[in-house]
């Protein structure tokens, strides 16, 4: 179990852990996707993944909190907490009745997120799904992102329809019929 150098491999400084491996794989996958089908298409697929994960995370928190639906006060806390659990550094910069503004200095994907803007669809969809399930409506605006090279993220979650730019999400329970 040793390499030719005589040093045991376990002691070698190789940046490879399960976490690094998974993040690298994700980076390679999204890179391949963006290169092959383009950024917009890639965002679409990541969004589908983001919605699925968002739905699962939402269910986890609701079960843990023993509520059918997150209330307004719980919403901001859940969104920062879920990011903290996956090694993000999201804090609430501003919170009003109509919106919550998040500030982030560390991406859960680490440096693997750089130039992989489609991965930000994970945040948009997870935040959008959880917020819309809680409040009925959400619009997520990714104003600044580490992926784009802004150095930090500024994510605004609007809770009422308005003229702001962003992706809109609606509570699924409301969608039983036209």
């Amino acid at each position, binding site marked *: 179990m040793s390499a030719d150098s005589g040093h045991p491999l376990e002691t070698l400084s190789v940046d490879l852990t399960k976490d690094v491996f998974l993040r690298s794989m994700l980076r390679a996958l999204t890179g391949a996707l963006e290169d092959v089908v383009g950024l917009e298409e890639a*965002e*679409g697929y990541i*969004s589908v993944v983001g919605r699925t994960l968002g739905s699962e995370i939402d269910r986890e928190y609701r079960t843990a909190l023993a509520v059918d639906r997150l209330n307004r006060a719980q919403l901001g806390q859940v969104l920062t907490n879920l990011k903290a659990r996956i090694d993000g550094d999201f804090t609430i910069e501003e919170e009003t009745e109509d919106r919550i503004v998040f500030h982030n200095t560390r991406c859960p994907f680490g440096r693997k997120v750089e130039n992989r803007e489609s991965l930000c669809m994970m945040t948009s969809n997870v935040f959008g799904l959880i917020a819309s399930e809680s409040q009925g409506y959400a619009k997520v605006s990714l104003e600044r992102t580490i992926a784009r090279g802004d150095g930090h993220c500024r994510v605004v979650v609007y809770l009422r329809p308005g003229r702001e730019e962003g992706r809109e*999400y609606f509570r699924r329970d409301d969608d*039983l019929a036209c």
Partner: protein
Amino acid sequence: MTSLAEAFFAFARLERAPMLLLDRAGRVLARNEAARRTIAAGEETVLAALPAARFLDFLRDAASAADPIPGRFAFPVSAAETVDLRCEAGACRFGEGERAILLRLLTGDRDQRGFAELKRQVSALNAEMHGRRESEERLRLVIETMRDGVVMFDSEGVIALANPAAAAMFGVAPGAFVGRTVLSLTPIAAQTELSEPALKAMWLPRSAPAGRETAVAVREDGTSFPLELAVQRSTSGRHEVFVAILRDVGQQLLLQEQLAQAQKMEAIGQLAGGIAHDFNNLLTVIIGGAESLLDGLASDTTARDAVRSILSAAQHGSELSRALLAFARRQPLKPAMFDCASRIVAMRDLLRRALRADIALQIGHGQHPLMVRADAAQLDAAILNLAINAQDAMSRGGALNISADAVALGEEEATAIGVAPGPYVRIAVADTGSGIPAELLGQVRQPFFTTKGLGRGTGLGLAQVDGYAAQSGGGMAILSEEGAGTTVELYLPFLAAAEIAEAVAAGPESDLEPPAPASVLIVEDDPMVRRVAVRILSGLDCTVHVAENGASAKLLLDGDERIDLVFTDMVLPGSLSGIDVVLHATARRPGILCAIASGYAGTALSDQGELPAEVTFVPKPYRKADLVRLVATVKARLLAE
């Protein structure tokens, strides 16, 4: 959904990929030609993609997601066969809670793009729908604020939409209109000129565009009105729709009738005025001749009686002529400022004597004085006239109430009465008699119209009162209901305080002085009238000069003859009128006295030109006493000088 489907077809029609517009339960709202060829799912059916539960979940996800999402399901290509196809779905949101799913099937066509393209199509559809919604909103605003009624209905005539004007026209709430049939708005039983098939064809025309039609419409309260409608047939999707513009033309027809009536009355008025004018000339001759005869028949009783009969008949003719001129609004009036309140109170004894004992008379007034400028004697005559009419309407007795008060007429009330808005004195003569049937109410102002028996009325009474009021700058209104009595209201302009003060400052007219010798220029084209005037004035110790027309009069006035009074007819042959003669006289001989004889009133005279204020007006037919009074004024001036 119709406009959403139209927006969908606008871009999906030529799209090569099969595209469908679904609601969130999977019902097909619209599909393009490629979808029609590819899968078995017609409009209004639920798309039976499998597995069904997951497909429904997929649609709900698509409806709530920000971006289009991909999926893969087994889609029906026939009743028994399905085929696995990839698909993408995006939500179109076009209003409060309104969403539809744009579904695109990926059939392996190389030209097909990914769902980023679908996202753009969803955005385009959303933008199209927003545009259409805004356009619809603008259109809705236009329709809702239209003064004409608008109703939309189907081929069965069932109303689907009605604007507030349409609902108000029929006296129902806008919502209550929906669901009714248009044919119920114009029931066949109410029609006088339309058969049932014609009525149906009018509402539901088979050819478009239809012209304007008229039918009798019935309001919710049962009253009817003439309805003009223009119906347009159209299609909305696969359905036939009709849009009708409705207009209540009752008011318009009423105005047309009023205009025609006014024109008729104007024509009759001109005719009556013209006849009365010529008649006056004849009467002047008859009266003048008869009075001269009377002077020379001191002892012959039989002959004097005959001449008196002639004078009496001529006087009666003069009254008839005066009534005709009143109707024609050309009666000679002597306007003066007076208080209506005290005037009507002063009529109590006269009215009490004139009315039967079973008529309870009440006279009253609100504020006083109620100052007007009008012919007070004519007001007395008008009130007497109305009182007699009221008595005739109360054959078994009743109450007659005469009142005066001040009112301010607004635009609408004033228009209804036919006067300008402003302050008026209203003199109301109200009875408790039989009233006037609605169908006769429009005719009672007409001359010679009477409901009284033969020989009991001339039919000029109300026409005369109406004419007097109009000529005095006011109007008349008749309020009546069969069995509930009649109120006739006379409106005379209420004098403002400033006008009263001005009139008071001018002071009363000076009394007449006894006659003294005078020189008179008579200008009259009618030889018979001229002879009468010459005879009377000569008999009054006047030197008389005669001119047959304005030009001859001017020559005389330009000469050296002494002339103290110019007495001219108003209407003269040639280019110069009596006013021209007067103006020439006063220009050449400042201070000269002038008098104008005419059967027309002062206001009618003013149509001929500006009448100098100091000119005396002598109404035709004139009597000797009128000329005695005139000459007395001249002689009084001569004495003073």
